[in-house]
């Protein structure tokens, strides 16, 4: 097990390096001169050269890359935003919490709704409930998140006035954005749970339990779910990335002050240091979560042995 984790982490390192190089190149491949953007366009050529020297922009790219990574790793310094001229890391720390809360709340919706629909569909296979559940899930997968969000906002905030339309604050602000974000994953979890439960229902030990005269729901709860949920847990974990990506869109709909809306604002204003930092951060988060999911799969499933 330990050696598996070590190997998995070691395998991730080259990937991380490539991703960081790509994100590093964002500032250097894109139009716009960092010196002119940061210090204004009217500085004299002499001052321009001096600043360029001072910022280290005359060094070869690999030296600059090394310095960039060193700053991130040792000080958590992602540079200065072109737009606000303030430290990117501070803004990220302030907004990270919002995105995490939103993502986790969505995951909660997704798991609760997805499991319920999936289990009901599987146990009542080929009934109207099963059909209804599956039609709903495929529809949910075809609905653009932002539209679903706008519709929820329209119904619950504008027409009924039960919940705030947008912004952040109390728990009531979290309900609509998290429900919106959770919809797609809930549908995936539901479909996956259904097929996983159906697989286990065919097992001999379930038949034995049934032959023994145990009640239907007891079988499902104690015998079936135990093994059916292991792949579901893994698959749900892997959906975390989808949620992170989706958060970008949903935050924009509900004006949720997280990293996603920060990213879009920065793209629209060509604030490359921020884009650079966020792209790196999102993919690192994603890779780390996937690693954790892989490891937890081993811990959860006794059949898996890492040689």
């Amino acid at each position: 097990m330990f050696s598996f984790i070590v190997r998995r982490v070691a395998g991730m390192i080259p990937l991380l390096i490539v991703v960081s190089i790509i994100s590093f190149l964002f500032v250097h491949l894109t139009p716009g001169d960092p010196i002119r953007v940061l210090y204004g366009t009217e500085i004299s050529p002499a001052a321009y050269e001096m600043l360029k020297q001072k910022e280290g922009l005359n060094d070869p790219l690999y030296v600059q890359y090394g310095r960039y990574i060193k700053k991130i790793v040792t000080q958590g310094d992602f540079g200065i935003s072109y737009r606000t001229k303030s430290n990117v890391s501070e803004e990220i720390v302030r907004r990270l919490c919002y995105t995490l809360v939103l993502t986790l709340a969505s995951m909660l919706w997704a798991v609760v709704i997805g499991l319920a629909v999936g289990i009901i569909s599987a146990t009542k296979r080929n009934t109207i409930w099963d059909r209804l559940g599956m039609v709903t899930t495929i529809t949910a997968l075809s609905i653009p998140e932002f539209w679903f969000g706008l519709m929820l906002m329209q119904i619950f905030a504008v027409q009924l006035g039960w919940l705030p339309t947008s912004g952040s604050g109390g728990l009531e602000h979290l309900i609509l954005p998290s429900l919106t974000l959770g919809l797609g994953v809930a549908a995936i979890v539901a479909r996956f749970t259904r097929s996983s439960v159906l697989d286990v229902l065919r097992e001999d030990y379930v038949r034995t339990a049934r032959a023994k005269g145990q009640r239907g729901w007891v079988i499902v709860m104690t015998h079936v779910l135990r093994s059916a949920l292991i792949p579901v847990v893994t698959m749900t974990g892997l959906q975390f990335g989808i949620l992170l990506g989706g958060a970008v869109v949903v935050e924009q709909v509900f004006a949720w002050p997280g990293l996603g809306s920060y990213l879009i604002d920065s793209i629209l204003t060509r604030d490359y240091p921020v884009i650079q930092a966020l792209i790196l951060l999102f993919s690192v988060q994603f890779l780390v979560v996937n690693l954790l999911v892989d490891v937890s799969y081993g811990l959860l499933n006794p059949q898996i042995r890492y040689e």
Partner: protein
Amino acid sequence: MNQQKSPSPFRVFLQKFLRQRFAVISLGLILCIIAVALLAPWLAPYDPYRPVTDQYAAKGIEAGRLTSASVKVEAVMSDGTIKRAKELGHLTLDSADRQIASARKAGENVIVNANGDGSTAILLSAGEAASRFKVIVSGEDNGQAYVSQLIADVQQHSLELGAEQTAKVKAVLTDGTELAGMNEIAAYVEKNAAMPAIKPAANDGFGNTRVTDDSHGLTFTSLEPDVVQVGSDGAIKAVGAGETAVKVSLDGVSTLIPLAVNQPLSKPIVTRLVPEELAIDLINRYKHQPPSGMHLFGTDHQNRDIFSRVLVGTRETLLIGFVSVSIGAAIGTFLGLLAGYYGRWLDALIMRCTDVLLAFPGILLAIAVIALLGPGIVNIIFAVAVFTVPIFIRIVRGSTLSVKQMTYVEAAKSIGVKDRVILMRHIFPGTLSIVMVYLTMRIGTAILIGASLSFLGLGGDITAPEWGAMLSAAKDNSRNLFHPTFFPGLAIVVTVLSFNLLGDGLRDALDPKLKD
């Protein structure tokens, strides 16, 4: 008989496919959508780029009937007869908010014109009698009911000197409720005390400034206090011979009670004005028209026909879906074939590149590409293509690995067929079925991602009739309205759902494990 035993694979596929009702319906829908995309410029009833108001004249549509309404006004005389508005001569009209609606006299009727969104009230007055009706423009009802009419009566209109009686008052609100008696009216006034009284403009040049602040509650005024005196509770006392009237007013609305002391009433006077309707609905034709026969999906914030925009937007949306997935699938399939067939370092290199692309979660890969290239429709297509590539590499590589094991591939190799030919003739067709399935499903996803990107404002032209951009504009400009956001989104859902269901159907039909 032999044919019965082993029908052609295509026929098996067709049989299996036709058995899937949903998939067949979806295929039909997709064909319809493609037809709409091709024919959109001819199908669209209006030009999607211009406000419809400019187009009415060319289409011979009388736009006026939408934005104005005529209301018949009648006057109830003190002798119970009813007069037409025309015969009154001195009817004045006053709108509480001319930005929203204005009114003018035209023969027997009053014509009300909508000028802006919202709701307001129009006060009619003839002499001392005044009534009011409500105007709601573009369905923006503020939910407030105004006092429309007052109905006051006494037991006897001809009094002896010194006689006393109390007036009975009833108020009618614009929502149709009746408040009978002083107590109910007092309760209403108290409840609405916080609401600003509806007053006509203080000085509108027509001397119609009768309404004052204190008239918010119910008031009684004797027109000639020498003849009749009246208390604030409606108690009337005849104090001198003559003919007069008591004016009852509430919140600008008033009615008259004609009274005569020691003599009969001579000529009937106007006691009350009755508009035909208490509240009228109008449409502001300059923006946000709700769905109607003329505009099936309504109009947007710039008064462009949403139905036409949705139709024309089909083209751009499908273009993003088809082109980006075709590019992505072509590159992905090519690299997947290479990786699967040649293996070793080429495989390792291609797969590591795929890992890098897959390290950006979900839509973020496409967003990152846009961040590099800048916003624009071509860049969206490119971004979605990049987003599609790694998935195709993975599935085609997997499929290639299994087809490579087939005996016929081994046979072809052993007789010295070139690698290039084996790949094209023997392996690629084997992967085609799974590529077809993913191609269909990915078009749905690509449309979703493309719409999301243009919703985020990364599509460049935000005024273009593209579904995502339309939703983005609706979110910013029509927050409180349902129709500008509903219809473009519905178009996306129907299209994506069709592709997803068709993909599901194809997968089941092509799956050899699935027996009939």
